[in-house]
Structure formats: structure tokens, C-alpha cells
């Protein structure tokens, strides 16, 4: 019950983590099924339709429901601590963002048991995704589920923007902010600009499918290429929404375990902003073969290649952060160090793809599958692993086992390269992507086998990670404030896990790497910026949860509004939009309660603070 009503960013972080773990597990199982089907030519382990549902759900789940919440988990757990805040700007919205995300994700996955998952690929290109060609409710689950989940992401993004803009501790200027806070800030800005595009796209597609509109229907003057533009205007920035936080994590972990400050901090900030900006200018590189013409292809080719420049700056800055330092190979740092070459490989294939005439060959083949997994798994997932191992003691008060962590790292990264390196060659040798099987004697067989074995190994790595979590959770929570000993930022100045109010006294920031600066100056902790006083806390509330349930019910009701049910009562409920209405009443009712009932929150008094604290 506590968990349903919490508005504490640290608890919401943990909720995001479990939800992300759940969906990541589902997406991972889907990946393993896909790979098992492709282990040999003409395999009949899965049928074609199921396979297409699996690739669609795997892609959709991983991108929207698997890694996003883990990113949000780390942001929630760390950002207020790093900037010296007691919570996020809008704790209520924070909870609302989580619950809409979760119910959107659940709705999407219900499609497996409610008559067919979406099957038009995670990009849902029309006309394949229109009701003419995708006849189950699958794509409806996709449009409505993602719409609801996207709402949560958008809320989360806005919340982080507001938090970082308004709640930094005294002295923490923008140019003293930790890199992870910076990338969170930029990521949130991208969310703010990119998500409205997909929101609009999903609405249009929903209207086409459920209400019979003609936005994408060729016969009625609609354009199928329009969907591609809308999708990728969102879709390309989305990739940067995913990777920038990983950049941030790496920029925290590497300095800590090199005992050096980040090399070229201001150029890192600048590169981040530049990447975000360019990220919006390159969407059509997903569409070189659509027939946009040479002028568009040339422009988008060149603008895409330019992204290599700020990305290169980042890579070299990380390398030179370690230069002259004292590098420790802890588990988080192993992941961070493994990230650099792996992500670089994904980056260089990206530049290759940017060359449009070469992309005419690469596009929609396994070369692309290899490329984006190098970026997303080899970049983002390794980054998330680094971050999770790094901040785990801060979040839970317990150190994960270093020994198991190293096992996780080695099995995962070896499995990863086995799985995806060979896929570059499969693509170049003529294997298209999204194929449920392939004919024998095309020289695809051996490499596909290798790839499947690699995927199994990655699965083993994940299991070791889960075992590690399980074993760790049974140990006492005794991590110190600064368990890695070389912590540089504010989160390491307070207990692990932090008390509900984070900072007894808001700290005064005197430079970049605030905590490190104090340590070097011989101080034990931060200088407070305020006297001990009573702390204002927001009240717990069930309303975000009920609001989201309402939206969830309304979504289901709308989706089935045109269905014939065998049962007259059901038909009556759905066809007259009664279910939809009930859902909306719950949501708006909750909103009304929220606005009518003024909750001023509560206070923690100084005496209580003294009582609970020892260090």
C-alpha cells in the first residue's frame, strides 16, 4: 500500500526499476525466442505471424518499456541527490508519470492474451499497420498502450526539467552540475520536443483504425510516407533520449574510478547539447530508400555524419579522463570501460549508414540490426549496468557482489559481441531483417548459429545479475555514505539509502565535483547553506494510481468500442462507450479531488532530524 501511494522520488525510482526489470525480462525472452527461431534455416519452431508479433513486441517493449524506465529509475534515484534537492519539483506528477507508464505498458502486453499482439514492426509503418492489413486488435494495443505510456514519459521529462532548473542547491550553477544531471536535463528537453510528434502520430493512426479516418489510407488521399516522417521525427530523437543518459552515467563512473575530474567538462556539455540539436535534424536518414530524392538524401547524409564530431569529442574526453589517473576495475567501471570501445563500434557503423548510397545496401538488413544493437545494447545497456552497479548501494544501502558483478560483465559482453558482431556480415551477405526464416545454402547458416549462441550467453549474464540482486537483498543494509570511497558528487555525502528528506541541511556548492572538492580541502562533509530547520514534505496519495487506472480502463473501452461481443451486455457496455466513460470518470474524478482538496503536506521538525541521525 505504501508503494501505491508514495510520492518520494527514491521509492518511485525503485518502482521504475522493478517495472523496467519486468518489461526488460519480457523483451529479453522475446529476443531469445526470435533468435531460437533463426538458429537454422527453414526452422519451424515459430510460425510467421507469431514471429512478426515477437519482433514487433520485442522492439516496442525494449525501447519504450524496457530501458526507458531503468533510465527513469536512475534519474529519479540520483538527480535530486546530485543537485542537492529534497525531492523533484512535482512529486505528485512524478508518481502519476510512473503509474501511467506502467499501465500503458501493461495494456500493450495484454495484447498477448487478448487476441493477438501488434505485428507491423515497432515502427508500425502504414499501410501494413492499418486495419486493412493488420486485422487483429494488435496495433490498437500498440497505439493506445504507447499513448498512455508516452504520457508518463512526457510527464517525467517535464518534471526533471523543472527540477533541474529550479531546485539546484545554492552555488550549483549550470556549469557546476554533474554530467549525469546535465544529460538528464538535455534528455528531458528532447522528450519535451519529440514526444508530441509520436503522440500526434498515434492519435492519427488510432483514428484511422478505430474511427475509420483516412490519414494514411492511399485510396482516400492519405499518405503512407507521412507516417514515416511523423514516426522518425520522434523516433530519431528517441535514440538520443536513450543514449544521452548513458553518456551521463559513463561521465560519472569513469572519473570516480580514475580519481580524476572529467576531462574537458565544458566541451562535454557543449557536445551533449550539439548532439541533441543534431538529433532533430537527421530523421530522414531512416528513409533514404523511401524515394525522397537526391537533394534530401544528400542533406540528411551530411547532417547525420556531423553527429560523429561531438560524439568523437566525448569518446576522447573519456579516454583522457583516465589518462594519468588511477583506474580501478570495479564492476561499474568494467561496464563503463567496456562501453567505450563497444559504443564506438556502434558509432562508426552509424557513420557508414549515413552515406546514403551505401545505405541503399545496408537499410533493412541485419547490418542495421547489428548497428542499433551496438548502440542500444552495447551503449545504453552497458551504461545502465554501470549505473546500476554504481548507485545500487546508494539506492538500497547494500553493495552488489563484486565477484558476481564481474561474471555478469564478462558473460554479457562476450555474449553481446558474439550475437551482434556477426550480424554485420549477415546483412552484407544479403540477409534482410524481420524475416521469420531464410532459405538454406545462402551462407547464412553458420553466422546465425553463432548469433543465437551469443544471445544465450547474454541471457546467462542477465541471470547472474538477478542472482546477484537476490543474494544481495538478503545481506544487511550497511553501505557507508561513500562506499566507493572516491565519490565526487553530492549523493555520496548523505547516508545510503538516504533519509526521506535527503539533506538535513541543503549543502553549499563551491565548485564542480562538490564533494571531492571538500574532501581534498580536508573537510568531512559539505558546508551547509542553511541552518537546521523544519522540512516540508509532500503527502502520500493514491490519486496518481487511480487516475492511471481510469485512463487504462478508458483505453480498453475505446479499443473494443466497435467489437461484436457474443454477449449482449458486454456489447452494450462497450459499443455505447460506457466502459470508456467509466474510465474517464475515474480519471477526472481523481483530478477533481486533487484540485478540491488542498493538501499542504507535512513537516519534519528539527528534533526528529537530530534523533534519526548519527553521522
Amino acid at each position, binding site marked *: 500500500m505504501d508503494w501505491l501511494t508514495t510520492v518520494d522520488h527514491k521509492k518511485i525510482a525503485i518502482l521504475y526499476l522493478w517495472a523496467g526489470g519486468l518489461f526488460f525480462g519480457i523483451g529479453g525472452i522475446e529476443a531469445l525466442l526470435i533468435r531460437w527461431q533463426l538458429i537454422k534455416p527453414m526452422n519451424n519452431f515459430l510460425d510467421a505471424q507469431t514471429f512478426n508479433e515477437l519482433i514487433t513486441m520485442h522492439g516496442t517493449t525494449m525501447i519504450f518499456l524496457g530501458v526507458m524506465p531503468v533510465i527513469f529509475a536512475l534519474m529519479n534515484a540520483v538527480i535530486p541527490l546530485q543537485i542537492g534537492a529534497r525531492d523533484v519539483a512535482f512529486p505528485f506528477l512524478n508518481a502519476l508519470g510512473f503509474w501511467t507508464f506502467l499501465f500503458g505498458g501493461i495494456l500493450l502486453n495484454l495484447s498477448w492474451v487478448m487476441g493477438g499482439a501488434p505485428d507491423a514492426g515497432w515502427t508500425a509503418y502504414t499501410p501494413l499497420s492499418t486495419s486493412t492489413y493488420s486485422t487483429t486488435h494488435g496495433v490498437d494495443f500498440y497505439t493506445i498502450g504507447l499513448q498512455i505510456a508516452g504520457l508518463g514519459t512526457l510527464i517525467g521529462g517535464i518534471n526533471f526539467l523543472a527540477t533541474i532548473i529550479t531546485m539546484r542547491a545554492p552555488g550549483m550553477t549550470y556549469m557546476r552540475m554533474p554530467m549525469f544531471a546535465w544529460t538528464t536535463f538535455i534528455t528531458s528537453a528532447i522528450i519535451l520536443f519529440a514526444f508530441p510528434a509520436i503522440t500526434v502520430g498515434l492519435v492519427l493512426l488510432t483514428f484511422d483504425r478505430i474511427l475509420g479516418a483516412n490519414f494514411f489510407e492511399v485510396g482516400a488521399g492519405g499518405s503512407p510516407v507521412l507516417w514515416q516522417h511523423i514516426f522518425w521525427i520522434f523516433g530519431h530523437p528517441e535514440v538520443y533520449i536513450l543514449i544521452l543518459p548513458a553518456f551521463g552515467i559513463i561521465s560519472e563512473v569513469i572519473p570516480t574510478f580514475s580519481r580524476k*575530474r572529467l576531462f574537458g567538462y565544458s566541451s562535454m556539455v557543449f557536445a551533449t547539447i550539439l548532439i541533441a540539436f543534431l538529433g532533430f535534424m537527421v530523421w530522414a536518414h531512416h528513409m533514404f530508400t523511401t524515394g525522397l530524392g537526391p537533394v534530401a538524401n544528400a542533406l540528411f547524409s551530411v547532417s547525420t555524419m556531423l553527429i560523429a564530431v561531438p560524439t568523437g569529442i566525448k569518446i576522447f574526453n573519456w579516454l583522457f579522463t583516465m589518462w594519468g589517473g588511477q583506474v580501478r576495475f570495479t564492476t561499474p567501471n568494467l561496464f563503463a570501460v567496456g562501453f567505450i570501445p563497444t559504443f564506438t563500434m556502434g558509432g562508426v557503423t552509424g557513420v557508414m549508414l549515413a552515406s546514403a548510397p551505401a*545505405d541503399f545496401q545496408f537499410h533493412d538488413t541485419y547490418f542495421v540490426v547489428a548497428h542499433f544493437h551496438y548502440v542500444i545494447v552495447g551503449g545504453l545497456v552497458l551504461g545502465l549496468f554501470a549505473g546500476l552497479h554504481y548507485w545500487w548501494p546508494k539506492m538500497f544501502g547494500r553493495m552488489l557482489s563484486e565477484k558476481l558483478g564481474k561474471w555478469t560483465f564478462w558473460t554479457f559482453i562476450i555474449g553481446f559481441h558474439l550475437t551482434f558482431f556477426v550480424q554485420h556480415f549477415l546483412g552484407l551477405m544479403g540477409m534482410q531483417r524481420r524475416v521469420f526464416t531464410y532459405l538454406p545454402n545462402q551462407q547464412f547458416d553458420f553466422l546465425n548459429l553463432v548469433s543465437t549462441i551469443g544471445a544465450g550467453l547474454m541471457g546467462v549474464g542477465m541471470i547472474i545479475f538477478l542472482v546477484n540482486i537476490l543474494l544481495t537483498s538478503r545481506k544487511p543494509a550497511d553501505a557507508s555514505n561513500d562506499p566507493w570511497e572516491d565519490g565526487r558528487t553530492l549523493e555520496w555525502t548523505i547516508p545510503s539509502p538516504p533519509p526521506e528528506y535527503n539533506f538535513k541541511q541543503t549543502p553549499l556548492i563551491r565548485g564542480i565535483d562538490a564533494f571531492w572538492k571538500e574532501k581534498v580541502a580536508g573537510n568531512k562533509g559539505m558546508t551547509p547553506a542553511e541552518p537546521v530547520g523544519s522540512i516540508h514534505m509532500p503527502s502520500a496519495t493514491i490519486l496518481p494510481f487511480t487516475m492511471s487506472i481510469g485512463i487504462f480502463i478508458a483505453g480498453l473501452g475505446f479499443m473494443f468500442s466497435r467489437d461484436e461481443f457474443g454477449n449482449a451486455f458486454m456489447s452494450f457496455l462497450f459499443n455505447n462507450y460506457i466502459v470508456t466513460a467509466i474510465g474517464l470518470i475515474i480519471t477526472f474524478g481523481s483530478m477533481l479531488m486533487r484540485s478540491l482538496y488542498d493538501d499542504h503536506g507535512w513537516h519534519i521538525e528539527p528534533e526528529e532530524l537530530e534523533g534519526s541521525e548519527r553521522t
Partner: protein
Amino acid sequence: MMKTWQAVKRLLPMTAMFGLFLAGCGREDLSVLRPQGPAADRSYGLMELSISIMIVVLLIVFTIAAYVLIRFRRRPGQNEIPEQVEGSIKLEILWTVIPLILVVVLAVPTVKAVFAAGDDHSNDKNAIKVKVTGHQYWWEFEYTDYKVTTAQDLIIPVGKDIAFELETKDVLHSFWVPSLSGKIDTNPAGTINRFSFSAPNEGVYRGKCAELCGPSHGLMEFKVKSVSEQEFQKWIDSMKTPVAVLPEDPALAEKFKAACLTCHAVGDQGINNAPNLTGIGSRESIAGILLNDDTREDGAPIEENLKTWLHDPQSVKPGNLMPNPKDLGLSDAEIDGIAEYLANYKLD
């Protein structure tokens, strides 16, 4: 510009080495790495250039990374605090400018090739004009100048430019012959694409659909057969002879007309709602994927392939739109009869 040119020159031996290595990869009639025509060459050239540049970048990054990780690991008892370096403007300019130069080196030939690939041959008198239409899950080829329509096998004269006009009748597909040229999408009417390629050598090349188009997307293959000029003319002529060859047995012929020619065509009979069957006995494959070459281990005699298909089209290509002949009222014997007839329906 002088500098970049030198950089390119220095990369050339590397490129050559890489070319050799990659040439070992894949089948000649299928692999992007073994280009068989100018359009594929153009893509391949850029791929070689970009791979070479990227390998250099990777080597630099890997070397620095390896050096740093070995040289600067923390040793036991090492407790003094390393110097906290803020950064270095010089170094940062260096690794901004070098990537910029590399990008320019790649961007210039890219832009050139983009415009070369965009050349429109549709008004070229010497080009053979072919209208490609994608269907779930088969390919239709219409030679507009000759009023000839065929399916699954695209016959082209060696060395000639083929000017394609591409369209889809249902969902998006993408037309791709890896060893001859990059792919281009087939969009619905109104957003028709054009492109062209040529095959300087005779041979059969494998083509594929590269855009997810439904369950049998992976099986939506076709063949491009490049033949001599005379052979091509001969083929066109025999495709044009309006007489349709029908099964000899009149009863079977009637059945065939009633059950099959409502979608398919042979010669001047029937319609082109489904793959045109004229001279199907000379095709490379049935349904694009059952290879008729029984000298190969993955091939089978054409009659056998036809039977496989006709007895259960769904099991060959799930989700395809051809009704099961049994549901059209054909008996097993009649199906076998039609298979035999089609297998022998060759163009001379």
C-alpha cells in the same frame, strides 16, 4: 583539399586489403560485398571508403584505450591524489578537427554518388523500361514498351540500363538485388519511385523484398536473369505470341480456366491479378523460393515444386492470397495434372 586527398591516398592500400578480405564473403549472386554491376559498385566503393576510415578511427580509439587501461591502473599502495586536469583546448580542437576532416572526406563522394544514383533513365531511349509492382508476396514485372508482363523472374539483356518504375498494390515493399544494386521502396500510387541498374555479366541474381510486408515478407524473393541481347529478344517475342497454351485434356483445360485464370493469366487469356504464368516451365523458381534447379541440393524438379505449391500454398508462403486449389474444387489428380502441364509449358 590537398590534405584530404593525401589522407585518401594513404587509405588506399588499406582499402585494397579490406576489399580482398570482404570479397570472400557471401555468394556472388547475392552478396553486397561482391558487386556485379555499376550501381552496386557505387555503393560498394563508398562502403570500402567508409569502412577504411572507420577502421582507422577504431584502431586509434582501441590503442589509446588499451594504453590507458594498462598504464594507468591503480596499483596497491598508490594513495597520492592524481593531478586534476581540467582539459586541454589544444587536444579538444584536435579531436574536433580531425573527425570533421574525415567527415568531409566521406561526405564529398557520398553527395556525388547520391546524385549519380538519382539519375533518371526513364527517358533514355536505350534503356529497357520495366514497371515493378510489389504484391503480398510476389513481384510483377511489366515491360511497358513491349506490353509484356511476367512475374518472379525478371529477364534483362546483359549490359543494358534497365529503367525501373516501382509501385505497390498493397503494403510497402522494397525491391532489392544486393549484388546488382541497392534497394528502393515500392510505394502506393502517387508516390512512385524510379531508379535503374544494369548487369554487365550474364547470370542469375537473387532479389529480395526488404520491407516488412506481412508474414511471408522473408519469402518474397525473386530472380534477375541477365541474358544476351538475342536471347532477350527471343524471350520477348515468345512472350508476345498471343496464343495461350492450355492443357491438352479439354476437361482439365476448362477446370484450369475456371479455377486459375480468374486471377492468373497465360498468354492472352486470364487476368494479371496474380503472377502471370506464361511460360512458367522456363522459370527459375516457383513462388520465388522453390528453386527449380534439381542439380542443386536445395533445388527440386519443377513439377515437384509445382505440386508442393499447388497442394498447399499456405504452407509454402504463410499468409499469401492464393486460395487452396482443393477449395476451388480441384481433385488431387487434377492438381497433379495441372502441375504437369505447367511444368511442361516452356517458352522455346
